[in-house]
């Protein structure tokens, strides 16, 4: 099973952290000479997935401002990014500990520390923090943030006590709470479906998975769950359909190195097939439009954008790609391909 934590956690944590930072900004001391907008720049680097640069900037920031808890917290967030395969979980933990000393038991700090502990498999440290955040009356976080942390705790309970009925009961309770807190949380639905399937409650699991796929049509985990759930329910054709979608989604992300990853032409084929198989998945249709443009097929890019905008009028990313395609059509050079994703050293 995958070890990834809820994929949306980082964005939520960043939003939470930004709110706290704005409300409780610490005045810079004399020794702190980094530009005042350095934290904002680091956040921008994280959002652009330029993790190595973000980590370097974060380290420089805490070196210049060792007394700035917000800087330490930001550094922790860099290393907690799900999307960075070469992140350093131990550094995230030490940075979060430093933030804890400087900022106190703020929810965003506790959340960062809990995730870091979880990543390091330090369940005994992570679980009390999650309890502090989630089980207080009222909980220290609400809505989607509460849901994400409850999903994280459920994941830990599954790993630690997968064979223990009491642990399974508690993780189901957590997931129920998560869904109450955020009824459209795809992560919570997929996770609860997994727990329900483990309990042979496939019909209940199916309901969760169908909602998850409605919220996140391009979710690889949700399609995998639907494949398994339909198969177990004897609905072979439905199972096969989700298998075909999952298989293509998996091929797009399964390799961490270019030697085994699909070439652009293969990616285009996969994305075109996905657009047919799963037209509600606008994100991958947008990726197809971008790739068509990158590969020089301006007409296909425009057609893909037009179709996207018909389904979701005024969607900014689709409009932006369409503008780039129109520029290319008029003879302007195509935009440089976005190669922000890092591959690191290729080591395991």
């Amino acid at each position, binding site marked *: 099973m*995958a070890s990834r934590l809820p994929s949306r956690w980082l964005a939520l944590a960043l939003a939470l952290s930004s709110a706290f930072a704005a409300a409780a900004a610490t005045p810079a001391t004399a020794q702190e000479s980094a530009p005042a907008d350095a934290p904002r720049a680091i956040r921008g680097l994280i959002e652009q997935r330029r993790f190595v640069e973000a980590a370097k900037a974060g380290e420089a920031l805490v070196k210049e401002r060792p007394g700035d808890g917000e800087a330490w917290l930001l550094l922790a967030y860099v290393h907690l990014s799900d999307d960075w395969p070469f992140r350093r979980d131990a550094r995230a933990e030490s940075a979060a500990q430093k933030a804890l000393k400087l900022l106190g038991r703020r929810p965003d700090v506790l959340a960062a520390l809990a995730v870091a502990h979880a990543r390091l*498999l330090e369940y005994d440290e992570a679980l009390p923090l999650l309890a502090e955040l989630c089980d207080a009356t009222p909980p220290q976080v609400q809505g989607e943030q509460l849901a994400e942390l409850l999903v994280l705790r459920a994941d830990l309970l599954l790993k630690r006590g997968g064979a223990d009925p009491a642990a399974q009961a508690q993780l189901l309770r957590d997931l129920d709470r998560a869904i109450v807190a955020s009824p459209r949380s795809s992560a919570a639905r997929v996770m609860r479906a997994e727990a329900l399937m483990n309990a042979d409650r496939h019909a209940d699991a199916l309901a969760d998975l169908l909602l998850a796929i409605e919220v996140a049509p391009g979710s690889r985990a949700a399609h995998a769950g639907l494949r*398994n759930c339909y*198969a*177990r329910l004897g609905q072979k054709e439905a199972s096969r359909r989700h298998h075909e979608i999952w298989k293509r989604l998996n091929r797009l992300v399964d390799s961490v190195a270019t030697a085994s990853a699909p070439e652009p032409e293969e990616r285009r084929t996969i994305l075109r097939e996905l657009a047919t198989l799963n037209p509600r998945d606008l994100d991958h249709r947008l990726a197809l439009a971008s790739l068509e443009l990158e590969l020089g097929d301006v007409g296909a890019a425009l057609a893909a954008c037009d179709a996207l905008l018909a389904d979701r009028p005024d969607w900014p990313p689709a409009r932006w790609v369409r503008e780039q395609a129109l520029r290319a059509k008029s003879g302007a050079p195509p935009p440089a391909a976005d190669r922000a994703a890092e591959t690191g050293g*290729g080591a*395991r």
Partner: protein
Amino acid sequence: MRRRLVVVAGLGLVVAVASAAVAATRQADAPAKPAAPATEPAFVVRRDCGIDFVHRRFATEGKKYLCETAGAGVALLDYDGDGRLDVYCAQSCPLPGWTGAADAPPDRLYRNLGGLRFEPVALARDGAKPLGLDDRRYGMGVTCPDVDNDGDPDLFVTNVGRDALYRNEGDGSFTDVTEASGIVDDWWSTAAGWADLDGDGDLDLYLANYAQIDFANYKVCTTRQVVSYCHPDTLKAAPDRLWRNDGGFKFTEITKEAGIVEPDEGGKGFAVIPFDQDGDGRLDLFVSNDADENYLWRNRGGMKFEEEAGLWGVDVSGRGASQSCMGTELADVDGDLDFDLFATNFAKEPNVLYVRGKDGYYDDRSYPSGLGEPSYLSVGFGARFFDYDRDADLDLIVVNGHIVDNVELADATQSFKQVPHFYENRGNGTFAQVGERLGPFFTTPDVGRGLATGDLDDDGDLDVVVLENDAPLVVLENAGKFPGRWIGLALVGTRSPRDALGAVVTIECAGKRQAQPLVGNVSYLSWVDLRLHFGLGQIPPDAKVRATIRWPSGTTQTVPDLAPDRYHRIEEPRH
């Protein structure tokens, strides 16, 4: 180097019991000594058994070719027909860039003298034919099928580079017949799945190849600016291949004609398990791939195959992510008389248990079974289900060890050497990790790779042999004294291949039924004792065992009233 406590107390008793049981094996159906009441179960490392093999992986500084951390396999075979299991160990060799002494030690064969004593078999022997086994390539896997159905095990060694097929001449020597056989493969090969895929009574070969490796232009990878072993994705996969056995040690490659066309960029195979997944009487093939989706090649008859792992839930984890499947096993984990699949995985992926449902679909039950959490931080390799304590359910041994010898630089949760695990079946298909109480082997970190089980001393319980990277071979004697009884079945095919690979045996004793498949190349790159061993638990003194054998030929045979506590030789009906 490992420094393990070697327990010698009680050795005389062990040897005496073993000797008695060996004699029982030689005299077919003679009773062996019933198991004594148990007190303290333990596995004992036997450094004094005469096996002096030390694996060397020849790690190159500055390059770190991925193959040199993959380790090698070990095989248990009775090469000389004396009724005792001998041991064959695959060895590595220097690779380009190696700066040490350029000696290339060969693979080694050790002859079982009985009483858990072994001696090395020399390559050149005064007054006798040379042994004929002199493989000095970069060894990976070892398999011992009876390719020509003449009653003795032949030998097929997979290498990084040319693989080698050796014919057992029946006189204690072997002949290299690789070129003449037509099985010529220069890829980095790993697992060899031998099975009668076309139902003609001889063993065909599915060869799993791992990756294309170009030593002259090898991409060096780094972790925190230090040279490290690459992720498998940095190498292109090498294609798996299929050969049809035409008899007389002649094979014809039929990979493409058979439909063995791997999807996408292909998989990096580490294990091949032949078994009849759909009960249609034809043997299918499960292939474990590293960092790629697994394959389930469904045998459609006429040597035609279709890949259907995804349609049966065994391609990836339950959450839809590819895993790093390495050591692989097929066993009835939950006692429902069908076969579940298990594979060891990389760190932060639990070992995966696919439990087969009644409709043939598999569920990922890694965590609910209790096998997930204890394995989450380990990198698993060799693995084997067997009933170590004869209580009539299958337990599991797994050896671990990271592939990156400087992994501590990158990940505080990891270490190169890792402790082996032993999982005791609670009797319901859930497990508890109990290694710590079974002996110091399970508390000593090391870099485990190949693993094979077999009754080396013919005392009615299964021992374990473990091949670790850069370490002496570990012979782990099952020295536990358990009250449960046992039975062993040695199958001899007549219309099926002689060693009956692919057969399924279901036994019934005192109201309890158990099933086991006969697969040789399980675990990781290794070959196990082909005698099927069943623990029976504590049964009435006069209890008998009823065995039903489903032979690969399709014949079903029932043998009633078998006496426990001995090995039985069962021959397939000729008509």
